[in-house]
């Protein structure tokens, strides 16, 4: 089974480094990004499954970054991390395609749990896509030949 790869995006450097260490200790592979732009760059070069995204960041903020990620990499699951306890920003995030949200200060176990759920969902989705592709193949190899 594929191992989950996480990306943590926040403008707080110390938060990134500690979270990375914690995740590593828990046995998760995580990369970090200090801004929205950096995050997009990281996703472009690596296969990221789950993004933990801070809502409030200087420059490109969480929601804008989320939209861009979803536009470019629809299968990448995003969990919003918000300092606001407002349903509003969470709802905005969910509307734009985030799978879940977390309120700061979030416990590391909470983050992992949500990330796992997101990863499962993504895997389920990938599985479905794979099965669908398989069926397509099984049904009519000639069509596939034609398609390619």
């Amino acid at each position, binding site marked *: 089974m594929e191992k989950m790869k996480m990306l943590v995006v926040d403008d707080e450097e110390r938060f990134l480094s*500690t979270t990375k260490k914690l995740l590593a200790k828990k046995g998760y592979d995580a990369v970090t990004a200090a801004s929205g732009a950096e995050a997009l760059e990281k996703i472009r070069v690596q296969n990221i499954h789950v993004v933990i995204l801070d809502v409030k960041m200087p420059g490109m903020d969480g929601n804008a970054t989320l939209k861009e990620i979803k536009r470019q990499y629809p299968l990448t699951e995003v969990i919003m991390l918000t300092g606001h306890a407002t349903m509003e920003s969470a709802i905005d995030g969910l509307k734009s395609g985030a799978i879940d949200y977390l*309120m700061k200060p979030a416990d590391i176990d909470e983050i992992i749990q949500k990330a796992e759920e997101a990863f499962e969902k993504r895997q389920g989705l990938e599985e479905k896509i794979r099965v669908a592709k398989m069926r397509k193949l099984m049904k009519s190899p000639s069509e596939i030949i034609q398609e390619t």
Partner: protein
Amino acid sequence: MMRKIILTSMILVPLIPFILALGTGYHYFTTSLENSTISSLQRIVEDHRHMIESFLKERKHDLDFILHSYTFEYLSQHEKLDGVFNHLQGGSHAFVDLGVFNEAGVHVAYHGPYSLRGKVYKDEEWFKEVIRHGYYISDIFLGYRQIPHFVIAVTREEADKKWVVRTTIDTVTFNNIVKGVRIGKTGEAYILNANGILQTEPRSGGKLMDKHPDNIEYPSSNTSIKTFINKDVKGEKYLYTTTWLQNKKWLLVVRQERADAFKALTSAVYLIVLISITGGSAIVAVAYYVTNLIVGRMEKMDTAKEQLNQQLIGASRLAELGEMSAGFAHEINNPLQIIKNEQSLIEMNLSELKETGHLKESESLAELEDSMDQITLQIARCSKITQAILKFGRQDEPKPQNIDLRSFIPEITGMVAQKAVVHGISIEQDIAENTYPVHGDSAQLQQVLVNLFNNAMDAILEQHGTSGGKLLVKAGPKENNTVEILIKDNGVGISPESLNKIFSPFFTTKSVGKGTGLGLSVCYGIINNMHGSMEASSEIGVGTTFTILLPAAV
């Protein structure tokens, strides 16, 4: 201060015209009454003088008639004189006797009760006077008879010989004529001669021919009338009117006790005093009453204004605080997140070190772990506070919809019903069928009601423990298209000092760590956003009532 001014003006404004009116009325009334009393007394004096003078004049005419109708010789005959006297007395009973005198003053003929014939009057004062003036009316005197009487004498010259006819006037008849005046209770009339000797008997007492003790003022001229007030010997004040009779020979005095004469005046004074006292006290009483009413209203209005001001200040302060604390909470959350992560890292490292045997079980390690637990706990506490603050100051738009309280309130009571049952609290619901729907965010309104229910139950637990708690939820329509929701408990109550502050953020009476002090201020903000109002009344040991007033949905 205000009260004094109002009271003074309320009393003075009606009192001054009232007193002026009474005073003016009194002045004009007394003046006119005095004038009319005096003038009526003067008229009586005048009439009386006229009557007395007429009486005397008639008697003189009677004598004149006799003098000219008969000769001296004729009248000197005793029997003839008798006849004439009888005629005379037929005209007036005032005549007591009749006598004829010759020039030498010898009483030639006499008809009367005494035997005076032959007596010589040549040197008597009256005889000298009558010879000199032809006519004489005496003062009252005793004469030979030693009885008070007065005489009228007239003389005639016949063949160079003067003769005189004289008659005695019955003092009783004359007295009665003079005394005949009756004015009020004490009015009386009498005659004095120029020396102040009584010529008739006053009704109030005093003997004929005595000197009258009163201090009498005399009129200046023959016909004028003098009016004055003097004390008599007993010290009683009398109103006197005097006028001369008989060419200043006699003085007619009419007097009446002052109090009697001005009786109407006295009753008027009593009446005025009575009116002044009752009217004055009525004015003062009404002024007091109205002033109390006005001052009371003003104070009430002032208090209401003050309360409104405080509420307004409170509301704007709440809004400011809300914004400020939301920003503040947000800023706290980020470092809090880092702290939390660092703490997790430390814990992990600790357990790793323990597992690898680098750290041995020791007291210090136990303490360290305890501290770590404490940090976890305190971070959780901080995060709870900031989340509450953020809820309180949140900027997001509510999702308003029409809420039917008739089903909405029971739903929410249902949510707390389990807790109520556990704590032995009976919930009573009284939701009127005609309760209007309200417009607002149902989640927010739910938050408000749940918060109030929880507070109420906490208060009840504190007061009653787990039995005897009562919680009443009441809803119904109110005037001006509003709906009232009442949440009443029989809990421990809120002190008046605390009651002023319950809607302020961070105000809590719960022990440290138990409450954030934001619940009610959040509720307040929500109801405020729904254009409603919320207030609390409470009594220590009796319970608290929260009243929410919301506009009905249109």
